[in-house]
């Protein structure tokens, strides 16, 4: 096993290493060994990591009798720990985090949580319904701009703007969803990508409404109201959630509510309909699942969650700009969903933290961290395509019965 892996590794190393020489280190006529060495360092490190992971995995697989992946066993082991214990521990950790962290760490935490809630929302579209969406960040933008504009022009508070943002997000979801209903697979991907870009460009070009590339500034932070009995009278006093810990708790609540919502959806009739659509749309339609309606619903609900996150983001920064909603952001959210394990809520939570916090930790390494990020992403997919914590249900579904005995390696002959 190890020998085989080593051989494979040698081929890998040959292909990438020899070939990357001209790219890594040569400029015109000069060769810069210093620069090259650093890049090579990252490269070699990743190869070694790849090798270790594969060897460990291979070793375990050899011990295992049949095709059962080792992740399944890890999962089982995890599930043997009382759930309450795990969840309670995590909740406690999340709750006390701001007490032991400084502002920067809290800020990173907030960003992670924003992305987690985005990932959970996209999970509905990609994970549950199986629709590849590359323009998801557009709904995030819709939420952010809805709150910003309502707050700046009409002074609408965060809580009042939130439902409006959600409704608008859902409407946009349907608008984007509708023309894509007939499409499948990669066509869907490009259309959603196109929509995402269109939304950003409209925000950037519609100067009279959105202030164009200048962005909007000065939105109020979310408020809490508490009763005041001063001067004998009764009135509500607004308390602005300005401090980072307060914002942290707010987004934490949003994430918890999102998790609860997604879980309930997952286990509902709708959730089953989505899964049916994901596994085989034609079959789902034939067995009476209203696919059109369910797909639109998936888009709308996914958009609603993103819209909430967007409103929070705008309120937190008190600033928004079309450049915050680039295609790359959609990619990052998609990475969170897939890396975490499509359809798996704990996976997405972990992936959200890993993808946002870890690059932040290594920010000092500047661009080398992005180099490693890309490589690790590829290797991660090659080694563990089902994600960090694969969804148990999806696994069961994928392995219990296979509807297409001729599937093998290709899509054509299905």
């Amino acid at each position, binding site marked *: 096993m190890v020998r085989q892996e080593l051989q494979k590794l040698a081929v890998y190393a040959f292909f990438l290493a020899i070939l990357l020489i001209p790219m890594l280190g040569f400029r015109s006529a000069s060769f810069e060994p210093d620069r090259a060495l650093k890049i090579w360092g990252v490269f070699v490190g990743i190869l070694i990591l790849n090798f270790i992971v594969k060897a460990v995995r291979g070793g375990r697989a050899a011990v295992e009798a049949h*095709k059962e992946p080792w992740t399944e066993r890890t999962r089982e082991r995890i599930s043997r720990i009382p759930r309450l214990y795990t969840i309670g521990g995590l909740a406690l950790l999340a709750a006390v985090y701001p007490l032991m962290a400084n502002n920067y760490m809290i800020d990173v935490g907030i960003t992670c949580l924003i992305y987690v809630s985005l990932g959970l929302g996209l999970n509905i579209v990609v994970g549950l319904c199986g629709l590849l969406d590359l323009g998801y960040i557009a709904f995030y933008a819709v939420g952010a701009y809805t709150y910003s504009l309502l707050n700046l022009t009409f002074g609408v508070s965060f809580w009042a703007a939130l439902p409006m943002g959600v409704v608008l997000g859902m409407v946009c979801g349907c608008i984007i969803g509708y023309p894509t209903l007939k499409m499948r697979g990669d066509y869907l991907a490009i259309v959603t990508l196109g929509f995402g870009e269109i939304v950003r460009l409209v925000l950037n070009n519609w100067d009279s409404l959105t202030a164009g590339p200048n962005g909007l500034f000065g939105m109020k932070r979310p408020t809490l109201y508490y009763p005041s009995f001063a001067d004998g009278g009764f009135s509500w006093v607004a308390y602005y959630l300005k401090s980072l810990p307060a914002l942290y708790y707010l987004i934490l609540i949003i994430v918890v509510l999102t998790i609860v919502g997604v879980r309930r959806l997952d286990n509902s009739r709708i959730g089953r309909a989505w899964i049916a659509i994901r596994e085989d749309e034609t079959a789902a339609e034939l067995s009476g699942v209203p696919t059109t309606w369910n797909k639109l619903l998936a888009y709308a609900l996914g958009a609603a969650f993103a819209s909430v996150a967007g409103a929070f983001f705008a309120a937190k920064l008190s600033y928004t700009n079309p450049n915050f909603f680039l295609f790359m952001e959609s990619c990052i959210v998609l990475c969170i969903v897939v890396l975490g394990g499509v359809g798996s809520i704990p996976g997405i939570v972990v992936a959200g933290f890993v993808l946002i916090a870890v690059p932040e930790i290594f920010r000092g390494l500047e661009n080398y961290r992005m180099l490693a990020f890309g490589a690790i992403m590829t290797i991660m997919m090659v080694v563990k395509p089902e994600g960090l914590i694969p969804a148990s249900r999806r696994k069961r579904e994928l*392995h*219990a*019965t*296979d509807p297409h*005995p*001729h*599937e*093998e390696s290709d899509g054509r*002959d299905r």
Partner: protein
Amino acid sequence: MAVTAKSILELTDVHTYYDNIHALKGISLSIPEGDIACLIGANGAGKSTTLLTISGVQPAEKGEIRFRGEPIQHLRPEQVAGKGVAQTPEGRQIFPRMTTFENLEMGAFLRKDKAAVAEDLEWVFSLFPVLKERAGQLGGTLSGGEQQMLAIGRSLMSRPALLLLDEPSLGLAPKLVERIFKTLLEINQKGTTIFLVEQNAHMALNISRTGYVMETGRIVLTDRASALLENEQVKKAYLGE
């Protein structure tokens, strides 16, 4: 079973899985050179899987497959094809955006002897004259029967020693089926061994010398085809009598 000639294909205790599904549960069979053998059985018995396993498309997990005495169970489909095994799979699998002519050409992909290929092309055209008429037409636009003929013709273009045929009669008019089976006999007379998988058991057993009956991943009956035609069990289950 009386095996007189030496066998061209031998399967010994072959097991195949689709993920967790145990599709072939220990198949053993042996096909003599120059024979027409057929495999009959109900839907989902594993007939097509047997052919795909021989071709290496759905590799065997366990067991041995020997072609002319040489083990081929570890070979990839393209290598199996290189040994002289051609398959006309279920559903014809014509290349839809290639012309009839190009489809036939693809059949001879591995052959370098241009003159012989041209000869075989003429032979295929003589077997199925309609293909000559349709030579410039895209494969996807042919009728079902024409596609079946094209699929068989394409397999013949590799001048195979062993031709695996999966349901050549599926979805075709009875008259056409008769013609195709007649052609199969003609092909066999030219020296190609044929291993046939059929639902149309009557037809298949009629032209075959050896027959195998499959049930849920196992071969349950092996005999001369003529004997199987008389077998009460077979009559009841597969011949609709």
